[in-house]
């Protein structure tokens, strides 16, 4: 219950800190606690106004912000990555995930599994 109560704070806090970081308006449209049928769990944050360049330039700060803000969820993500709207520079979402075995194989290699994702953080295996 505590976690659910904190979700609004997390959403607002991430939005505000990214505005401060980038110096412009960024909209966190939605922040979801997610579970997937493959076995992954995590947090998915949907954005408007965030660009590929932002996540590349500020990758380490964004990871710090996301980890700090979501610490109460005790997720300890294996991976944090941004998903781009395919073929564009638009960041659709950032996912913090604890990976299932199958996805661990996909994300674990040297090559990004899909061309429209930008990996901000990967836990050393």
């Amino acid at each position, binding site marked *: 219950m505590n976690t659910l109560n904190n979700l*609004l*704070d997390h*959403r*607002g*806090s991430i*939005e*505000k*800190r990214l*505005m*401060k*970081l980038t*110096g*412009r*308006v*960024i*909209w966190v*449209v939605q922040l979801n606690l997610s579970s997937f049928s493959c076995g992954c769990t995590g947090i998915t944050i949907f954005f*408007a*106004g*965030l660009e590929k360049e932002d996540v590349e330039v500020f990758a380490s*700060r964004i990871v710090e912000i996301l980890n700090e803000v979501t610490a109460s969820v005790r997720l300890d993500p294996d991976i944090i990555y941004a998903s781009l*709207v*395919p073929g*564009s520079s*638009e960041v*659709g979402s950032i996912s913090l995930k604890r990976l299932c075995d199958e996805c661990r194989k996909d994300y674990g290699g040297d090559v990004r599994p899909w061309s429209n994702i930008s990996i901000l953080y990967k836990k050393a295996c």
Partner: protein
Amino acid sequence: MKLCAPLPGHLDATKKILKEEASNLHEVFMAGSSDYIPTGRQALGESFSETIEETTRLVHEDNLRMDVVMNASCMGGRHLTDEGLHRYMSYLEILARAGVDAVTLADPYLIEVASRNFSFDVIVSCISFVDSPEKAIFYEELGADGITVDTSINRDFHVLEAIRDAVSCDIRVLVNEGCLYKCPFRYFDFNVVSHTSGPPPVPKISFNYYQRKCRSLRVKKPWLLMKANWVRPEDLKAYEEIGIDTFKISGRNQPVNWVIETIKTYKSRDFSGNLIDLLDYSRSMKHLFYIPNKKLDGAIDRWKSCDRNCHRCGFCKDLTAQIMKVYLERGTDREMLVSLTELNEGVPDEYPE
């Protein structure tokens, strides 16, 4: 003033809207069945023939007009096949039997077919992009009884007056759609929605580029919201002064209570809240931006005479900087509103970056 308002489609909603707002309305509209003809908005439910018949009966009990909207911009050529035309004609016959007073269409061929073969009024959709007297004359000659003008000319009084002068049919202004001025995505998005809201085959799109891009453009350039095609309730009289008094409220996918409140607001011609709350498309942005409607008093005088050369003007951008605010930590104990100027100077908070 003749107000036209949306019905979300289910009978409970129709009854509630009619009970509370019938006396404020001239006409209501709802989507037709997507089994036959797609529409320009994603259909949320099924408008079965029986629902339209029952809705029309209820609407007529309150002495209002009933309009069914089937304004797809693309039908994949189906309407130009023998089988497709037969299907569309049989649906128009169902609507005629249900007693609807008007059908709103976007495709010129269907407009001609409907006006030649049926006695209900045929209204040209804003998706036909009537933005000049010539186009208005074309549609009137095709048989149109009413034209909802392209929303991109909503503030172009010179063109609006010329259209009013050129035709004698009803001219309608869609007041709160909220789409971008001269939206570059408009044709493409309507084409996509025409297919995703219509009969099979329905493409399973994985993302809507146009709507996402539109949203992020507004976040990055908030002044685009100021230049969008909305009309304030207080400014309706400017349209009446040039002979346009039919105003259509957009929002058939919005919740019932919002529809009722928006009818009341336009009827009262007075609104003290966040202008974004009146807009159909992009209403969710009211959780990010705040545009105090009352601070827009008088802006229409500038818009009425501007030449749309925004790159040389800057009025809307300056106005945005002066009055628009951004929510920080919305929905929490720490929620606050800061101006765009304050934001540009640095987010005021306790977080060191």
